[in-house]
């Protein structure tokens, strides 16, 4: 009995507790990201944003969640039921499990994988399935077109993201996310975005496209596709898509922070007394603010221009950067051991 407790039950309880400690704050963060989005865009458009439910409208996301929870889940008769149900679950699960390798602070990570960045890349490349499956299973033209657009878009921008990750890895010499952050300790001038500034910009734009956010939100272009791949979804199935999409935004911001903005490290050595997790949180918030800012500022891209940007501008640019970084490292004998 003692063996069973020590060998199996205790570790399992620990792991479940750790997972909950990541997932629950994440879901709260997602809820308040929607609130922040409405407030920020409201402020930029000289409106007030949500301000009725609770003080400053702070209970609005909870009310929205409750509303979605209480609605009826409608499955269209012509839909492919199994795939129709699985698609939102898949989107949501993928957005959650990627968090396993994100380091919040020194040693504060659920799974310190040696191939952490590849794991993240693999999970984010699966994200397209949820959307394509939803579009196909809905058996509707709007949903299908939205899914196809989204699929093509995500596959295209993944390539430039991959190449950007490679050029960062070349200077870090490790696939482990914690090691990538440790390579940037010492202050803001040590962070990767200083050395990879052009790629930092390309990366920010690429993650906008990868998460289907404005100005690249063609898959859900309201004007032409009603709402794209999730047009036939209602209630909790829709909520899962919504949660997944916003969790993905936070995840991509987290990845951006780890790769370019020094993860949990403080921007100045004198500020190191503040815990790393707080820095990490603040940095994620600032990247998320860029997401919202861009949405309120730029009009939507045309589809062919989106593809052109991905394949004819970002791909050659990030390729050239990989070459440049690799050559530099070899010529000046700075290849990390």
């Amino acid at each position, binding site marked *: 009995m003692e063996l069973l407790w020590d060998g*199996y039950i205790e570790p399992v309880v620990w792991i479940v507790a750790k997972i909950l400690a990541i997932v629950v704050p994440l879901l709260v963060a997602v809820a308040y990201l929607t609130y922040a989005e409405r407030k920020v865009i409201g402020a930029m458009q000289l409106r007030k944003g949500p301000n009725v439910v609770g003080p400053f409208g702070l209970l609005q996301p909870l009310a929205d969640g409750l509303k979605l929870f209480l609605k009826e889940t409608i499955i269209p008769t012509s839909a*492919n039921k199994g*795939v129709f149900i699985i698609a939102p679950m898949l989107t949501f699960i993928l957005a959650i499990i990627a968090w396993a390798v994100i380091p919040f602070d020194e040693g504060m990570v659920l799974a310190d*994988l*040696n*191939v952490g960045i*590849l*794991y993240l*890349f*693999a999970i984010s*490349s*699966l994200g*397209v*399935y949820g959307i*394509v*499956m939803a579009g*196909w299973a809905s058996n509707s033209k709007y949903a*299908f077109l939205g899914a*196809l657009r989204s*699929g093509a878009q995500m*596959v295209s921008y*993944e390539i430039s993201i991959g190449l950007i990750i490679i050029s960062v890895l070349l200077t870090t010499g490790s*696939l482990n996310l914690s090691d990538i952050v440790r390579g940037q300790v010492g202050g803001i001038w040590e962070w990767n975005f200083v050395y990879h500034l052009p790629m930092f910009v390309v990366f920010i734009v690429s993650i906008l496209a990868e998460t289907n956010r404005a100005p690249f939100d063609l898959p859900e272009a309201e004007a032409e596709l009603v709402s794209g791949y999730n047009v036939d979804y209602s209630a909790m199935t829709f909520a899962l898509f919504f949660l997944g999409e916003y969790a993905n935004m936070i995840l991509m911001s987290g990845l951006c922070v780890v790769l370019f903005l020094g993860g949990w490290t403080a921007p100045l050595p004198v500020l190191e007394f503040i815990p790393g997790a707080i820095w990490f949180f603040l940095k994620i918030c600032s990247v998320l603010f860029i997401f919202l800012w861009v949405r309120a500022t730029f009009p939507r891209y045309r589809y*062919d*221009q989106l593809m*052109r940007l991905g394949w004819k501008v970002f791909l050659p640019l990030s390729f050239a950067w990989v070459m440049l970084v690799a050559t530099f490292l070899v010529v000046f004998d700075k290849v990390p051991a």
Partner: protein
Amino acid sequence: MVVQALAFYLFATVAVIAATAVVTVRNPVHSVLLLILTFFNAAGLFVLLGAEFLAMLLVVVYVGAVAVLFLFVVMMLDINFVEMRQGFLNYLPIGVLIALVLFVELAFVGATWALTDDKIAVLAHPTPAGLTNVEALGQLIYTDYAYIFQASGLVLLVAMIGAIVLTLRTREGVRRQKISEQVKRQRADTLEIKKVPVGRGI
């Protein structure tokens, strides 16, 4: 160890069931989705073997890219189930033949394994001691066999160019957007300011 064994049986069972379902289900889209499930479980088995790099590559390349293309193609198909079943008997002999060849090959592998006395000696080492398997693979590909690896890259490049040449069609009369020209456009190219005398027009 028990947990590992359980994980192995879970991945292996799901992989085998999903792989069987790939060839038996009616709907091709379901087939592709099950194929993806099979890939995913194979990746899980790789992780259990200690080859986590290969596992991630399997997911990134096959699940994340190749299978997406499969899915796109299959979803676009206009499927006629009756027609699909008509060719079944014609293709049966060649299908059985291929299956037989594969089965015999697998049986050979199994038999060599069963007949070897010193099983430890023939065990494939996942990685040389002291190296992570990314480093080990990197050394093999980029140090020991660098030229062969580059050559295989060239073969792929040729295949890619071939595919583009075969499918490239230039249509007459297509008006494409030339972004560089649009950016280069000066005010003088498009605007002309004319003085229009009152009552006469241009």
